[in-house]
């Protein structure tokens, strides 16, 4: 198998008249951390959501681990088992406890039996610093705690790629650090990650590659050093000026 984890070719996505992605080519290597940046409405989140087909691509191909995700013949549920996703608004299952949130998918999909799942989820909760919250209901948690549970929930399926859709945008500033810390640990352990974020600090520190998107196009990509210290594209320059000056 090649070193390529994700291979997106000429991806187009429209909502009626609204053309959101206008021919995206996008690659992610194994163990690579890619951060997607760009102004809102640039199509970052749509691209991310196409990767596990939460959005149906209009045209183009998305190949993950050699499997064409965008093809109708693909068992998307099976493919998603290996693609973890973390949402801006956490989306913890409100009717289940924290522990049940994490155990649900592995047990329902026959990956683990109940005891194994319990053991795994307790370990994961410990990793994200919430060992005491196993029996808590999601509504009793703070935003930062919810997001860490959501990460643990995604990890319980043992995915080999994780997608993060603005994971810290809905958090109070003092909560952001805890979540980023968990993500850094993941990156350090070699998880392949695609992260949509406005946290430029995180991008600089953790990303192997930064991709700048605007108006449905990838305008520029490169190492954090190249993008942040020496952006080539005018749009990248003006975007970075705005976000870094804030």
């Amino acid at each position, binding site marked *: 198998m090649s070193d390529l984890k994700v291979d997106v070719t000429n991806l187009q996505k429209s909502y009626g008249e609204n053309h959101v992605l206008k021919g995206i080519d996008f690659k992610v290597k194994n163990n690579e951390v890619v951060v997607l940046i760009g102004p809102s409405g640039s199509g970052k989140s749509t691209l991310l959501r196409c990767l596990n087909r939460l959005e149906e691509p209009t045209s183009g191909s998305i190949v993950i681990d050699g499997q064409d995700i965008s093809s109708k013949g693909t068992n998307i549920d099976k493919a998603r088992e290996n693609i973890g996703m973390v949402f801006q608004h956490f989306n913890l299952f409100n009717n289940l406890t924290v522990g049940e949130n994490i155990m649900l998918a592995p047990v*329902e999909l026959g990956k683990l039996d109940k005891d194994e799942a319990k053991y795994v989820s307790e370990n994961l909760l410990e990793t994200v610093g919430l060992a005491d919250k196993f029996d808590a209901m999601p509504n009793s948690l703070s935003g930062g705690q919810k997001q860490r549970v*959501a990460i643990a929930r995604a990890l319980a399926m043992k995915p080999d790629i994780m997608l993060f859709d603005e994971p810290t945008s809905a958090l109070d500033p003092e909560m952001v650090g805890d979540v980023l810390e968990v993500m850094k640990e993941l990156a350090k352990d070699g998880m392949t990650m695609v992260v949509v974020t406005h946290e430029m600090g995180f991008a600089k520190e953790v990303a192997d590659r930064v991709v700048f998107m605007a108006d449905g196009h990838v305008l520029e990509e490169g190492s954090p050093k190249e993008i942040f210290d020496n952006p080539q594209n005018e749009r990248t320059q003006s975007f970075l000026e705005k976000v870094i000056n804030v």
Partner: protein
Amino acid sequence: MKKIIAYITIITSLVSVLLISRPQKVLAKDTYNIATDVTFPPFVYANDKNEYVGIDIDLMNEIAKEEGFKVNIKPIGFNAALQSVTSGQVDGMIAGMTITDERKQKFDFSSPYYSSGIVMAVSPKSNIDSLKDLRGKKVAVKTGTSGADYANSIKDKYGFKVVTFDDSDNMYNDVENHNSDACFEDDAVMNYGIKTGLDLKVVTKPVNNANYGFAVKKGENQELLHKFNKGLAKLKANGKYQQIIDKYTGAKATSRKLAAQKNNHTILGIIKENKGAILTGVIETIKLTVVSIIFATIFGIVIGLLGVIPNKISQAISVFVIYVFRGLPLLVLALFIYNGIPSLTGTKIPAFVAGVITLALNEGAYIAAFVKGGIEAVDKGQMEAARSLGLPFSKSMIKIILPQGMKIMIPSFINQFIITLKDTSILSIIGILELTQTGKIIIARNLEGFRMWAIVAVIYLALITILTLLSKWIERRIKA
């Protein structure tokens, strides 16, 4: 696609279960279903033991005995009887039915068994004493009767308005209460009513004298018609016919009836006298409610779920079903299913089954609407998160979305169950002997409209209280 097929299978089997759950009695060739009115004394009424009696009933039974066949008498109301004969739900009807040319288009009539004319009755204190006094007044009639036809034929000439009622008792009450100024009714019926306590007086001579006949659907059940005519001739010859007429119109019959009535004027007296009938009515209402709630809930959830499956065809089916069955008035739906479907398919539907189907479809459509709404009210992110973990749509629905949607839906369910209970009363129109119909029949006999409806109202409130408490208890158990 598989899912849709599965859901369609569920719906189909649901409908077929409904259709076959009460297999019709296989009638021997010598048993006939005969429809009649609920209230048309002295021709048709329930006596104080709640048995149906009257000139029509006794004649029918005697003729059956004479000719060696059996009858199954169904007091479903005059209009429902007309429709049931034409749709083939019953074999014939005897309900003080006047033989007219118009009716001969759709029915074959027996030889006349009674002759009657139309009279006008007013409140005793009224100074109306001829048709000329009716200008600008309101006249009460019973729908489908010759009295109604007569009133409509002369209303322009005399300048009065016609108010239509479904049974005689409500028509009389309207005049007694001075809402209407007069009513038109067959003279035998009117005179009998006044003798037995109606507070009205007859002010005109019988006009449009016409004959009553037993009717079958045109061109069908000719053998039954033939037997009726033969039997009637025999009864007239052997004197039994006159005995029956005297039994119901003679002075003895009417005065005894009057005396009996005076004993039972109190609410307690009414309850005591009719407790068997009321209890049967209550049980029928409960049965109808419970069975309908079960089927409406299943039907509603299935249709509601079809509406949220990400598939255009299933969503269209859901929208259409909700649109149709929520849009149709319950009364129209009940009459259509009971009378319309047998005309189309040639299969009879028992009234109870027709009632359950009606409520299941109508209440089910409301349930489907709020099931859909409840599911849609659950944050979309919940479904996305579940799907992103690799859980299939159905599992995500069952484990995550439905449990959360249910909490939103519970108050609507309780509300709908209460509405279902109340709506069973509308099914009295197709002759189901539930609480409301029982009330009508009792009133037809004792003419105690106000007291009896008060009793019925209190019983409904009691039932609804029980249902509400039960629902709240279940709600607490679910939430706990």
